[in-house]
């Protein structure tokens, strides 16, 4: 088990290095010159060169990448003496459009994204799993049919539509949230109600499609597992239906959900662009979209892309380890 974890950890670190290097190479290929973008109106070739130097783009891609990695662990100073700015570790770069360390910008945006992802995750897991189990148990009956309508609606309505509908017909219609306060940050620990006001509807919107998918997935897994021989054995032993469902069926039926849920959650930690946009949440998704479409702020783009991929890779590692704990066939072979 320990060697398994160590191997997976090493593997993840190598992958992170490769992915980050790839990101640097890809952005280098894009035919937009950040040095020219940040240049003032009276731009001269020498000013562009100076900018290129300030942005750290006058060295090879490999060197840029290496400076970034070092900065992650040791912090980094941008610019020349006199106007030098130091960003503490983990330094993700310096944004010349916002004149701030990228780490600071990301740290401001991340609580929005985390709140949204976590809230949606809890909602969709609880709704998806309970509806899935319910409709598997009541296969063909009214509850199952109602759940299948929910699945159909949830999987076919895109988030941007449900989001707009929720804002127009629930949030604004019933005055549930002051439009001027839409997207305001509230600390969930000191102002839980304010936090709920900001995040409940975005989380519910984001969770809808996932909840529908998880309902379908849970339902089919529970039905499939119920016809397994080992469930017949559990029944032959004399166990009650309740114990059979809770202990024997769900344990086997939900194991694969751990993997999928972990990866879906990781995907959202990189930012939920559409939901953040509709509900005015200044999370990572909105940050990166703005950086790409309005300012072409390369350090922010690189940082958010890297963060999103790092979450996926790290969650992959966690999910693999968690799965080994759940399934002894993985653990002991």
């Amino acid at each position, binding site marked *: 088990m320990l060697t398994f974890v160590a191997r997976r950890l090493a593997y993840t670190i190598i992958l992170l290095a490769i992915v980050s290097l790839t990101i640097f190479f890809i952005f280098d290929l894009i035919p937009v010159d950040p040095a020219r973008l940040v240049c003032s109106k009276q731009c001269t070739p020498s000013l562009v060169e100076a900018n290129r130097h300030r942005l750290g783009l006058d060295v090879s891609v490999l060197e840029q990448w290496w400076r970034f990695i070092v900065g992650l662990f040791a912090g980094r100073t941008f610019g020349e003496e006199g106007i030098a700015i130091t960003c503490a570790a983990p330094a993700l770069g310096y944004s010349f459009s916002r004149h701030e360390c990228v780490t600071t910008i990301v740290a401001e945006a991340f609580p929005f994204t985390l709140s949204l992802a976590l809230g949606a995750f809890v909602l969709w897991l609880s709704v998806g799993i309970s509806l899935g189990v319910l409709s598997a148990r009541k296969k063909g009956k009214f509850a199952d049919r109602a759940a299948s309508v929910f699945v159909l609606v949830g999987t076919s309505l895109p988030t941007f539509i449900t989001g707009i509908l929720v804002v127009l017909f629930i949030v604004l219609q019933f005055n549930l949230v002051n439009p001027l306060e839409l997207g305001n940050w509230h600390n969930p620990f000191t102002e839980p109600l304010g936090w709920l006001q900001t995040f409940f509807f975005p989380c519910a919107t984001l969770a809808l499609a996932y909840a529908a998918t998880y309902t379908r997935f849970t339902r089919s897994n529970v039905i499939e597992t119920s016809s397994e*021989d080992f469930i*017949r*054995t559990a029944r*032959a*032993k004399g166990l009650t239906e309740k114990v059979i469902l809770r202990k024997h069926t769900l344990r086997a039926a939900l194991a694969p959900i751990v993997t999928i849920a972990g990866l879906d959650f990781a995907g959202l930690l990189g930012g939920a662009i559409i939901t953040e946009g509709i509900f005015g949440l200044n999370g990572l998704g909105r940050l990166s979209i703005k950086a790409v479409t309005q300012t072409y702020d390369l350090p922010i783009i690189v940082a958010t892309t890297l963060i999103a991929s790092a979450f996926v890779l790290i969650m992959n590692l966690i999910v693999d380890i968690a799965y080994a704990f759940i*399934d*002894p066939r993985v653990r*002991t072979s």
Partner: protein
Amino acid sequence: MSKFLEVTNLNVSFPTEDGEVRASNEVSYSVGLGETLAIVGESGSGKSVSNLAVMGLHNPVRTKITGSAVLNLADGPVDVISASADTVRRLRGKSMSMIFQDPMSALHPFFTIGDQIAEAWHLYNKGSKKDGIKKATEMLDLVGIPDAASRAHDYPHQFSGGMRQRAMIAMALVNNPSLLIADEPTTALDVTVQSQILQLLKDLQKEFNMAIILITHDLGVVAEVADRICVMYGGRIVEDGTVDDIFYRPEHPYTLGLLNSVPRITAGESHRLRAIPGQPPSLISLPSGCAFQPRCEYSTKVSSGACASTVPSLSDKGSGHLSRCHLDAADLNNLVKDKA
């Protein structure tokens, strides 16, 4: 005197889109404590379906069951077919147990062997977790698993096929049931392991004075362990007799066919191995007469085409040896002799 289990006129059918599958058709059999009843027949003849009904393991919504299956328990008889689901559940594991064909898929892959046996024990016994594991270890030891104390902490995938079936037997017997239904317990195993498992069942039967129903499609495995044999075909019992009746005085052409397809060494003469030609009937649309008629080489010997038009009744050919055939036993014997 009544036997421990008495199944009478059991009918089990499954309504499907293509029609009703009549998997068990007026089936009657009984087995006493300390006795072994073998139920033999080709795959799909209704052996498992009949016995799953006794265990109450059919889906109540999708299965139609009539008839009776009475367990003569110490505190009075219970008909498991008409009893409530909860009553039958409380009999499972404690009064009757069942083991299945594929011991790999029959054990839960996520729980240790010891936990799975202990879980069955805890259902009917008070005791700590430790007591449960201790009991599980005892049972594993009893069924011949070496180093049982440490193997109890292993998972099913760490056991070999034969070991898993031993573990299943340990689990089925942990509450000392009076009836054990073994549904093809050796079919998935190597030949050498097969005889070990059958021997184990025989030994345990002596120790616990159990009634055993041994389901198999292989007549070859029952000669040594069974007291009585029921031969099933197309959802019906076609012949029912003692081991000697079935092996030495078979009275049904299907039983003859089965015997011919089993390798036997008879004194002096070598035996030609012959599978029964043709396919078992579909249980949705059984032939109107004898279900075996399309495959039976003797059906032409019966006058007025009765084989194709009338279902033969299961009649006593003397001293409790039952057969479901229009042909007279003496006539069948003569025909067989003529052929040889």
